[in-house]
C-alpha cells in the first residue's frame, strides 16, 4: 500500500471507523507505511507522543528472530488521529504495543494493529487504554494472525475504555485468526465509567472532583506505559498524557 493507492472506504475492515472525510484531505500527502526491519536479536523502541499534522502514522515492521519491537503511542490532539502498525514476527520475536487514546470534542482517534506471528515461539503484548470525553470516538482494532507452524505463540491484548460523557463512543475489536494449535491468546475488552464509590471516597478525604478524576484517569492510562523499559521516556509520555487529560471532561 503506498500513498498512491486508492483512498480506502469504510467497507474495508481496517478503516471501518475511520473519518473518511478527514482522510480524503490528507491521503495524497500521506506517506506509505514506514518500513522498519529489526535485525535478529536486536531491540527497537519507538515512541509517538505527538501525531504529525496529517494525524496519521503507519508502520510496517518486520521483527527478526529473537528481536523485539516496542511501540508506545499517545493518540490525541487530532480531529482524526490514527496509529496503524503491522508487525510480522520471526521465531521467538516479541512485539509490544502500549497505546493511550485521549479524545475530546468530535475527535475520531484510532489504533489499528495487525500482528502476524509467522514463526514459532513469538510473543506479543498489546495494552490500549482509552479516555473519551465530549462526543469523541475511540477505536482499537487489533488483528492477531498465527500461522500454521507458529506453535507456542503467546499473544495478549488488553483494551479498556473509560467514557467521561454520554456522547462518547468506544470501539474495541480484538480479532484472532489462528491456524496453529499450541498457542495462547488472551484478550479482554471493557468499557466503563469512573467508579463512583471511589470518587466519593476520594472526595471524603478532601479531594475536589477534578483532582480525584485526574488521579484515577492517570492510574488508568498508566497501564499502557508500564511496559516501557526507559523510565525517563515513560515519565515524559505520562506527563504529556496528564496535560491532555487535564483538558478533558
Amino acid at each position, binding site marked *: 500500500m503506498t500513498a498512491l493507492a486508492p483512498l480506502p472506504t469504510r467497507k474495508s475492515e481496517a478503516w471501518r471507523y475511520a473519518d473518511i472525510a478527514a482522510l480524503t484531505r490528507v491521503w495524497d500527502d500521506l506517506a506509505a507505511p514506514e518500513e522498519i526491519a529489526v535485525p535478529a536479536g536486536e531491540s527497537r523502541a519507538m515512541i509517538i507522543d505527538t501525531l504529525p499534522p496529517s494525524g496519521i502514522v503507519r508502520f510496517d515492521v518486520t521483527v527478526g528472530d529473537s528481536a523485539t519491537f516496542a511501540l508506545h503511542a499517545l493518540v490525541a490532539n487530532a480531529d482524526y488521529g490514527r496509529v496503524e502498525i503491522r508487525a510480522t514476527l520471526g521465531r521467538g520475536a516479541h512485539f509490544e504495543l502500549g497505546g493511550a487514546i485521549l479524545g475530546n470534542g468530535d475527535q475520531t482517534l484510532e489504533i489499528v494493529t495487525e500482528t502476524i506471528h509467522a514463526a514459532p515461539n513469538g510473543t506479543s503484548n498489546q495494552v490500549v487504554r482509552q479516555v473519551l470525553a465530549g462526543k469523541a470516538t475511540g477505536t482499537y482494532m487489533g488483528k492477531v494472525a498465527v500461522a500454521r507452524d507458529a506453535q507456542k505463540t503467546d499473544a495478549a491484548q488488553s483494551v479498556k475504555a473509560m467514557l467521561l460523557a454520554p456522547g462518547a463512543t468506544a470501539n474495541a475489536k480484538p480479532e484472532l485468526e489462528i491456524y496453529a494449535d499450541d498457542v495462547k491468546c488472551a484478550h479482554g475488552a471493557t468499557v466503563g465509567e469512573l467508579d463512583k464509590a471511589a470518587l466519593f471516597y476520594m472526595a471524603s478525604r478532601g479531594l475536589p472532583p477534578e483532582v480525584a478524576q485526574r488521579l*484515577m484517569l492517570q492510574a488508568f492510562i498508566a497501564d499502557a506505559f508500564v511496559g516501557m523499559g526507559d523510565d525517563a521516556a515513560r515519565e515524559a509520555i505520562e506527563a504529556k498524557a496528564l496535560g491532555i487529560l487535564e483538558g478533558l471532561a
Partner: protein
Amino acid sequence: MLKITNLHATVADKPILKGLDLAINAGEIHAIMGPNGAGKSTLANVLGGRPGYEVTDGSAIFDGQDLLDLDPHARAAAGLFLGFQYPVEIPGVSNVQFLRESLNAQRGSRGEAPLSGGDFLRLAKEKAALLKMDMDMLKRPVNVGFSGGEKKRNEMVQMGILDPKLAILDETDSGLDIDALRTVGAGINAIMRSPDKAVLLITHYQRLLDYVKPDFVHVLADGRIVKTGGPELAHQLEEEGYEAVAA
C-alpha cells in the same frame, strides 16, 4: 460542634432517616449502636454528602456552617472525616500520593501552604507507626489487596494524617483482630481525644468502647435516635439486646 435536627433522608426514594436529632459538643465521644438496617451508615453517608442520599427535611450544622450545603470535599476541608464501613479500593493510586494530594487540597482550601514531599512522608511515617502499619503498605495502591482489618487500620492512618475535628467512624472495629482492636482504639484516643475534637463511633460491639470510652451512647432504630444514655447503656444492650432496651 455538630447539631443535627429533625434529619430526614431517603435512599432511592426510600425513607431511611426519619427525624433524627443528635448534638455533639467538642471534647465528646459519642457511640451509636443499633440493629442492622437501622440507618447508621446512611447517617454517616448523608453527613459526608454521598451522592444518592437525599435530605428531605431537617438540618445539620457543623461548627456554625450548614454542613448539608457543602460539597463532600469541602466538608472534609471543614474538618469532617468519615471512616468507611467498607473502605474503597483505588487501583493504581498509591496511598501516599492520594493522601498527600488530599491533605494539600484541604490545606489549600483553608489558605494554608502545601506540605512538601519530605514533610508529608515524615507525618505519614509517624501516623503509620502509631497504628503499627508497615510503611510499605502506604506505598501500595489505596486498599488494593488489603485484608479487611488492614483496610480499617488504613482508615485510621488516614485519619491521623488528615487530623480532622470530627470523625464519624462506621464500624471501624469490625474485622479487626484482638490486638488490632487495641491498637486502633489507642490510635483513636491519640488522634481524636482532645478538648477541641469529637468522635461519633458507630459500632455493634462493646469491645471497642472498652478502649475508647464514650461519653454518650445512643440507640438508632428505624431512622431515629430512640434512646440515649451513658457508657452503661452499651453494656445493657449487650446483655439484653435492642428489643428489650429500646422498645
